[in-house]
């Protein structure tokens, strides 16, 4: 499968401080690529460089199989929809008027406006001034602008910012369904791994401007397994079984709660069976998911870069 976005040793420094450090990004066609990193990791700067909004200090960007330069930048970006940082919109104009301006700039038919308004559920408010919109509505208008003209690539920087829980859920479903519905490839950034897990197929983790991990989500999930919490009725019997199997156990502060290290599904299945047979009384088993920071830590502690 072809890459829709490729960057080669992309760097950006401000006053000698490296914000993006030799970034090699590979976004597969038809994928939903989650670009994850804590605030200040360099996600927005990287995305701005992909859109030609910020000039790279060095390196190159290949978009839709063409190396981007000043000559072809606008032509390439007209096939791309984007939402960077906060949503755009002329406050004194209505959503429809705003979309009309974007449609004209993209050189597409104004008939598409109703379609995108419908997708983001703004049809009823299409003739209200954007200045009267809530942040969530502005965010949805930003998505509608990005979707105008059925772009081949969508670059969305934290698009769920400012949305209420229902809006976040709607946005996730919308983004996850985009590749099937329109064939668009999506690059989406977030600082929340939990949010990304529900909609992405590929993941790139950025920290201090460096790519720590790039690959399928399943690959990352191997790194996200945390400790296991085991709640039992009979602690001494449980410890006996665990010791017999050579599993290190820590007593938790709550009664009848033990903490085990990460275990594979197969070992866990055998352990639960043995505990049940010994009469330890398994009440609950919770697999802890590592926070993004913990994954970063485990990634950096292991090899610095995993791919």
């Amino acid at each position, binding site marked *: 499968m072809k890459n829709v976005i490729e960057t080669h040793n992309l760097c950006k420094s401000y006053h000698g401080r490296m914000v993006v450090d030799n970034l090699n990004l590979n976004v597969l066609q038809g994928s939903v690529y989650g670009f994850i990193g804590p605030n200040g990791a360099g996600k927005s700067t990287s995305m701005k460089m992909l859109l030609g909004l910020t000039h790279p200090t060095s390196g190159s960007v290949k978009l839709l199989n063409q190396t981007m330069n000043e000559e072809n930048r606008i032509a390439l970006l007209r096939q791309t929809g*984007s939402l960077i940082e906060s949503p*755009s919109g*002329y406050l004194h104009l209505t959503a429809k008027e705003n979309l009309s301006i974007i449609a004209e700039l993209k050189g597409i038919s104004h008939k598409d406006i109703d379609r995108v308004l419908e997708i983001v559920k703004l049809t009823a408010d299409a003739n209200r001034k954007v200045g009267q919109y809530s942040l969530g509505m502005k965010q949805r208008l930003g998505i509608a602008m990005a979707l105008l003209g059925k772009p081949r690539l969508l670059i969305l920087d934290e698009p769920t910012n400012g949305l209420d829980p229902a809006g976040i859920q709607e946005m996730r479903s919308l983004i996850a369904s985009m590749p099937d519905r329109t064939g668009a490839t999506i690059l989406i950034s977030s600082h929340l791994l939990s949010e990304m897990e529900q909609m992405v197929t590929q993941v790139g983790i950025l920290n201090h401007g460096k790519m720590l991990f790039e690959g399928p989500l399943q690959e990352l999930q191997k790194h996200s397994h945390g400790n296991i919490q085991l709640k039992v009725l009979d602690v001494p019997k449980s410890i006996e079984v665990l010791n017999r199997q050579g599993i290190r156990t820590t007593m938790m502060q709550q009664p009848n709660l033990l903490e085990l290290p990460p275990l594979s599904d197969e070992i866990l299945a055998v352990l639960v069976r043995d505990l049940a047979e010994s009469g330890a009384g398994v009440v609950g088993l919770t697999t802890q998911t590592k926070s993004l920071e913990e994954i970063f830590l485990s990634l950096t502690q292991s090899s610095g870069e995993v791919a």
Partner: protein
Amino acid sequence: MTGTFHIEIQKAHRRHDIWICLLVSMIMVVWVGGLSPSVPDELANAYSALFYSIPVINSIILPVFMALLASRLWDMEIKGNTTKLLYTLQSRRSLFKGKVIFGVMEIFLTVFMEMGAVLLLGKIHGYTETFPAGQFIYLAVCTTAAGLMLFFSEFFIMLIWNNPLPALCVGIVGALLGLFSAFMPPIVSYFVPWGYFIPLSSYEVAKWDQATHTVTYGTRSFNWGLLAFTFALAALFFYASWRRVQKQEV
């Protein structure tokens, strides 16, 4: 070119910028109209009086109005957070071109309306003085040149601060400085660009009769050097604004 201009027109919808342009000539009509001559002697000298007054009025109101027009033109992009989106759909040159064409059109409209008001006042009040066509064209050109220079300087300030307030403050303070420079030795006025309307004027007070309070106006030669310098300043601010748009990271 028509595409980018058309988009600017769409953006200007509900912003009432045309009314701001019309307001300049309306202020002039009310201001000068209130002092309109009525006696035959004054009517015979009326165009001269009008052409003497207009640059003074312009030096008071145009620096503020030009700041208003220039800052509003870019302020909507700041408030709407639109540049990040626009630069992915059109080149910086194209956006700048649209702004420049729209701004210049506003200046032309302002000058056109003001000059139209001159003709209207002459017609309504029945000025008997021969219409000075050459002076009229010169006044229009000078007003346009100074308007362009002020517009681009205020636009540049707006681009630097991304806030309309500094441009408006400079416009207001500039208007006051420009007016006061008219009462200083002529050389001083050359250092105050906001008031260039006055040293560019081709009319001056030739005689002031203290007993009858009668003013006789005379003409002076066109100030081609200052006019050329005004255009050069406008070009300089235009270039500085373009460089700012070209280099600004969003």
